[in-house]
């Protein structure tokens, strides 16, 4: 079995040398998991705030995109990496979240943002219950096939109900920027990034706490040997559906953040490519650790950017340039599996171990 680091805080750079810092590290470890995760999340949010106060608005947008992709990939990590169910259709839940958010803003403009986000989570969790219950008996390739059909089929609903869902052009909304009280302190783009990351970090705290607790152990037991887990008294079906629902909720919330950030929800943003990219990011980052979701999300956002930039700088024809990111991503996926199956997180961890041994 792969050794797992599920608590965000466990690897969050706790000091390891000196007597005073060792006492501090001990006290840190003595804290309850939830408290550690919350503290780490607060630190991360502060970090995002400081980082975005020195970066340009366009970089803020990229940082915020990393945020919501990370939440979606982390949800997928819980499903695939921890509970061992392969979903190829996670973009469908982002689609549900994005459209729920857009519809709420358009039809109920007075509702506060946090309530919209909460409603989105509820809606996507309900969708997760439906899909999860329908697919609970499926395993491996059968589940992959069903989720694949979901990811391709769902966005076509927008064409079926053009008055409500806006057809191929999708829905666009306007979101409020920074609250007036903070207008001197924080720019609009910075505010957006902080809001998206706050949402993501709340989601991550929940994911990290769940996965290091009893539910997480049950999921890993099912992933490693379903029959043995059932014999040990673990309710296999229920645990699988719960994993599906949590992960659907994360996907929905990520979709809501996407709509909030970009102000649009279009069917083309939720095509099959998105679902495959999320899976790719997960594998790239490394299966079995929530940290992998961070590296994967960064790769997802910046690969697209660098690929496009690279193609432009090499002065390639548009046919070639348009397809550079997708080919790069595919090549990287294959190479990662063939050469380095632990993903980026495996690499980071090995580097960390090297540094520690030297120190």
């Amino acid at each position: 079995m792969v050794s797992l680091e599920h608590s965000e805080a466990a690897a969050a750079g706790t000091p390891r040398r000196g007597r005073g810092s060792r006492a501090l590290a001990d006290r840190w470890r003595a804290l309850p998991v939830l408290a550690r995760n919350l503290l780490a999340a607060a630190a991360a949010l502060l970090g995002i705030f400081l980082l975005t106060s020195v970066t340009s608005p366009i970089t803020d947008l990229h940082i915020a995109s990393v945020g919501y992709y990370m939440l979606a990939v982390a949800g997928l990590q819980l499903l695939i990496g921890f509970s061992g169910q392969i979903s190829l259709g996670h973009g469908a839940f982002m689609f549900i979240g994005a459209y729920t958010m857009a519809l709420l803003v358009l039809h109920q403009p007075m509702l506060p943002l946090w309530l919209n986000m909460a409603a989105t989570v509820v809606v996507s969790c309900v969708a997760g219950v439906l899909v999860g219950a329908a697919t609970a008996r499926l395993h491996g390739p059968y589940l992959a096939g069903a989720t694949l059909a979901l990811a391709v089929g769902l966005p076509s609903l927008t064409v079926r109900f053009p008055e409500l869902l806006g057809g191929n052009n999708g829905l666009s909304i306007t979101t409020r920027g920074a609250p007036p009280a903070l207008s001197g302190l924080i720019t609009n783009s910075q505010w957006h990034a902080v809001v998206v990351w706050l949402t993501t970090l709340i989601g991550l705290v929940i994911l990290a706490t769940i996965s290091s607790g009893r539910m997480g152990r049950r999921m890993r037991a099912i992933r490693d040997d379903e029959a043995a887990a059932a014999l040990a008294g673990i309710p296999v079906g229920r645990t699988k559906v719960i994993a599906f629902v949590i992960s659907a909720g994360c996907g929905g919330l990520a979709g809501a953040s996407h709509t909030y950030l970009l102000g649009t929800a279009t069917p083309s943003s939720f095509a099959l490519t998105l679902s495959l990219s999320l899976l790719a990011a997960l594998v790239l980052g490394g299966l079995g650790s929530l940290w992998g979701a961070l590296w994967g999300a960064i790769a997802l956002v910046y690969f697209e950017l660098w690929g496009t930039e690279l193609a432009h700088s090499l002065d390639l024809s548009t046919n070639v340039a348009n397809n550079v990111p997708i080919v790069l991503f595919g090549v990287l996926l294959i190479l990662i599996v063939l050469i380095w199956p632990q993903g980026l997180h495996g690499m980071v961890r090995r580097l960390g171990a090297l540094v520690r041994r030297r120190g």
Partner: protein
Amino acid sequence: MNHFIDLTLNGLAAGAVYAALALSLVIIYQATRVINFAQPALALIAVYIAYTVTQATGNYWLGFAAALVTGLVLGAATERILIRPVHGTSPLNAVIVTLGLLLVLQGAAGMIWSNEPHSFPYPLDFRGRFSPSDIFALASVGVAALLLFGLYRATPLGLRMRAAAFHPEAARLTGVRVGLMLMTGWAIASVIGALAGMLATPPFVYPNVLDAVFIFGITAAVVGGLENPFGALVGGLLIGVSLSYVSGYAGPELTTLAALAILVVVLSVRPDGLFTRPTARKV
């Protein structure tokens, strides 16, 4: 009533294509326990090669032959270069590798032939109810299935291939070259995939042209049961006809969701597909 007959006949012709794709997935699944998500991309490259050959020579059937040969070569190469190294590791690895290949080949097709659609000819006349093209689709898939059945059941090669898939170690002891047999399975599957691509592509070819068809193909394979080639054929025709009714009576946008609904309903009654016998699992 006329409309109904039209829809049924159209559904059968479309179903033949889904059946061919499902068959190619099942052959590979039986041989190596891998769902080949790169199948639409392998078929896509074959179709583009056919497009180029047809453009150059002006002869559709030369292009058709070129597509089948391309499928053969690509399938064998994929197994040898990408699938064999991950054989026996986590099943997720094979899924990821084939998805990676899908992205690479679709991107490469866009780079070489551009993302814009090109017009692509039908094999025969396509006008009217149950046109010659439709008959050709049904007939060619039927012939391919019969050839395949003959190969697996009546030739020494087929026997070796079945042995290699059924019990690799025992097969190896009796002198069967297991790797070569698995590679042959991939090559044959991908020829059938290329055939499906040639039938499904017209009137236009562009990099994502086979995505939807692939979804229906995989649905057909899963509904029929991934272990069973006969199930794949029946599943394909079933999906083709049902989706034709959905498209005709409720609207073409709903076909993918209808495919999903059929999948969920069938699998909730029979989780391993219609035609797979339940197997005992050892704990």
